[in-house]
């Protein structure tokens, strides 16, 4: 199948998937008890029945759910994700404002996890019974088993109480005033703990996977041939073996992207990172349906695109896939 045709087909499937996600989310969210009028009543210390009715009418909550869904889908098709009940501003504005923080966090964690994880995996694969290999195995098991919010809380305690060297909330200091370069440093300083927390989970998986893949590949005939030709060990490991072991790592990177985003949502809540996760979490509690639906829509879109890019990257990494195995 030609690459372009393949992309179009995948985009079509992706579109159907995203539509399904939107409809499912819509019904799930509307099945929750209570609505925004009650939340606003709570925030305001009580309001009149008339005001509650006005709020419900203002947000269309007095209409049947199926009508609300129709109106919502109509809006989405026009690129309008509605207006946040809580912030009284367009959801797309809020998402664009918060998406950068989430993407920064997710990509930073992904890079840390892949670079450190694969490096550890490759190094430990060279001596499968060695100390480093044992360490990687233990670290991987613990890192994978520990819930991400627990890891985050432990890091908060460690770096706020025991060794207070990293900020534990927010993306930029409240008092920050300075140049763009200072701003980058300030954000990087705030990014260390949340990105590390998220990376630990995935780092463990990459380390385990790359270790297993490398052990298998290092025993292959062509690696033995490369060594017999007198190539250096580093060249054999990183050029010949790693290149052939990288496919399962790429597969996992793509599949895990959805998990990475959902992990980011949890980490944002722990570290008060001002991204979409924090926004989604607060929106659930506030019954801010348009915002929550918007975040879920955006997240599903990102996951679909990430999976598509992963599939395309296979085709680049392994010509057999591109040629249909001929």
């Amino acid at each position: 199948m030609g690459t372009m045709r393949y992309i179009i087909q995948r985009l079509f499937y992706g579109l159907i998937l995203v539509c399904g996600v939107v409809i499912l989310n819509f019904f799930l969210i509307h099945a929750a008890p209570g609505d925004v009028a009650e939340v606003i009543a709570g925030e305001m210390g009580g309001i009149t029945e008339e005001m509650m009715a006005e709020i419900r009418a203002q947000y269309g909550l007095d209409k049947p759910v199926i009508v609300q869904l129709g109106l919502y889908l109509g809006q989405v098709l026009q690129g309008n994700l509605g207006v946040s009940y809580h912030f009284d501003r367009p959801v797309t504005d809020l998402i664009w404002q918060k998406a950068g923080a989430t993407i920064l966090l997710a990509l930073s964690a992904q890079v840390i996890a892949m670079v450190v994880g694969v490096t550890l995996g490759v190094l430990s694969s060279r001596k499968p019974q060695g100390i480093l290999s044992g360490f990687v195995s233990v670290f991987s098991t613990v890192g994978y088993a520990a819930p991400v919010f627990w890891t985050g809380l432990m890091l908060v305690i460690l770096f706020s109480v025991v060794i207070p060297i990293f900020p534990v909330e927010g993306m930029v200091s409240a008092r920050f005033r300075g140049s763009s370069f200072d701003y980058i440093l300030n954000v990087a300083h705030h990014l260390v703990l949340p990105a590390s927390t998220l990376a630990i989970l995935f780092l463990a998986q990459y380390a385990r996977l790359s270790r297993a893949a490398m052990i298998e590949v290092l025993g292959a005939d062509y690696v033995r041939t490369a060594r017999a030709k007198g190539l250096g060990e580093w060249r054999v490991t990183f050029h010949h073996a790693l290149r052939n072991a990288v496919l399962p790592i790429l597969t996992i990177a793509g599949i895990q992207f959805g998990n990475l985003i959902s992990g980011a949502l949890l980490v944002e809540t722990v570290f008060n990172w001002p991204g979409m996760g924090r926004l989604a979490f607060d929106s659930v509690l506030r019954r801010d349906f348009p915002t929550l639906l918007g975040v879920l829509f955006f997240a599903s879109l990102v996951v679909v695109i990430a999976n598509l890019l992963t599939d395309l990257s296979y085709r680049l990494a392994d010509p057999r896939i591109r040629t249909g195995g001929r």
Partner: protein
Amino acid sequence: MLMKRRTLFGAIASVVALSVGIATAEPRSGGELVFVSGETPRHMNPAVQSGVATAIPGTQLFASPLRVDENWDLHPYLAEAWEWSDDGLSLTLNLVDNAVFHDGVPVTSSDVAFSIMTIKANHPFQTMFGPVEAVDTPDAHTAVIRLSQPHPALLLALTGALCPIIPEHIYGDGQAVRDHPANNAPIGSGPFQLAEYRPGEQITLERFDDFFIDGRPYLDRVIYRIVGDAASVTLSLESGDADIGIVADASSITRLGGVDGLTVTPQGFEGIGPIQWIAFNTRVEPMNDVRVRQAIAYATDTDFILNALMRGVASAQTSPIIASSPLSDPNMVTYPLDLDRANALLDEAGHPRGDDGTRFTLTMETVPGRDAALGNIPEYLRSQLREVGINVELRASPDFPTWAGHLASGDFQMSMDIVFNWGDPVIGVHRTYLSSNIREVIWSNTQGYENERVDELLDMAGRELDTDARASLYQEFQQIVGEELPVYWINALPYHHAFDDRLGNPPLTIWGMMQSLDQVYWTEDR
């Protein structure tokens, strides 16, 4: 109560300084103040949105006609003088003549009239300006508020976040004020103007140079920093990332009390008057029997709740009006722990013990997200009420709307609840006890309580301008509800301000942070 560890002399000096509401050093200009909060405001216009989260930035952006100090005494603000008519049916406000909004437009009496009528039409506290018929504007700096009946709560309703003066030239454009775009980019006449707003993250306010009080505000900047939860508030204060914040749980209060350079005090919440109580649905069996409600009160050890569960940080509350209010009755009937009396009342009410020792089963609602911080009172009551043969089943709602739905629809027997007085009983107390306010919305008379004499007393107290006569009416009201217990008051919520010691004139009036910070300053460089 000051929690900070310090020398005896230092503690005494601080108590004296706080009690007289003055700073110990000359005011200095400059610096910024970071307030940390776990609450996210919907927007910044308190004219159409109540609640602490909106009130704190809102009172920096918008000035009000009057302000109030820590002794409940009123002071001029936008109104330099005020005068009641002899019949108590009109109040004349004389406005300062040099006040301007942040866009340079002068503040006039028509802005005052527009604001009061907007608040009356849109604010959830309908009783605040309920009796206001109109606001006359004989000249640009005189506003006459005309009333249908005397309204003793009016002066307090003109203070702080209850009466922000909003610009008519912006909000009077025909759009609904409740969701007006200017609510997210407000123009007021307060001491600070909006510099940056990142929803859910931070509000940065900068000094308004043309503020109508010379030399004020002292601070260059006020930052409202929004963090995720109470633990993050505590961490921010402890680390010095924030200068002032509000904490309400025993562990945070105790922890911050031990931090050098921080003062932790319960002062500054007299206005909102937050009361925690057990609400009884008086329309359903067996809660419709006053003896059952009294038996539960006698079986509840409030000393244990205050000292063990809440670790001594909360104060007792025995009446519907917050104990720090001059209208609170100090001689309320009380219900000390007395299991024999509780058992006798339950026997008398026709609820004998069954073979397993149980008289009946009650369902108790818990306020989501609050109980861990406030001592898990429902868990305690479950074991304690078993002592008198009442089996309590807890119903924990996952979130606020679910819990609020149960109470509003009357689908409950007993629930923990937290309700604010909001300064004057007319605003925050009447709503719980008036039979005319039995409605399907949260924090109305969801208990379904009806007593004709109570209705009569509250109606009279809501019209009485004489303070002593009013106090007497409220005293009788408090005695009646103290006997009939539509709710059982446990404690004042342990809200505490925690702030940097170097802060001069900290915001500790009855409205705390919900009033202009123009008088706050740093005594030394931060």
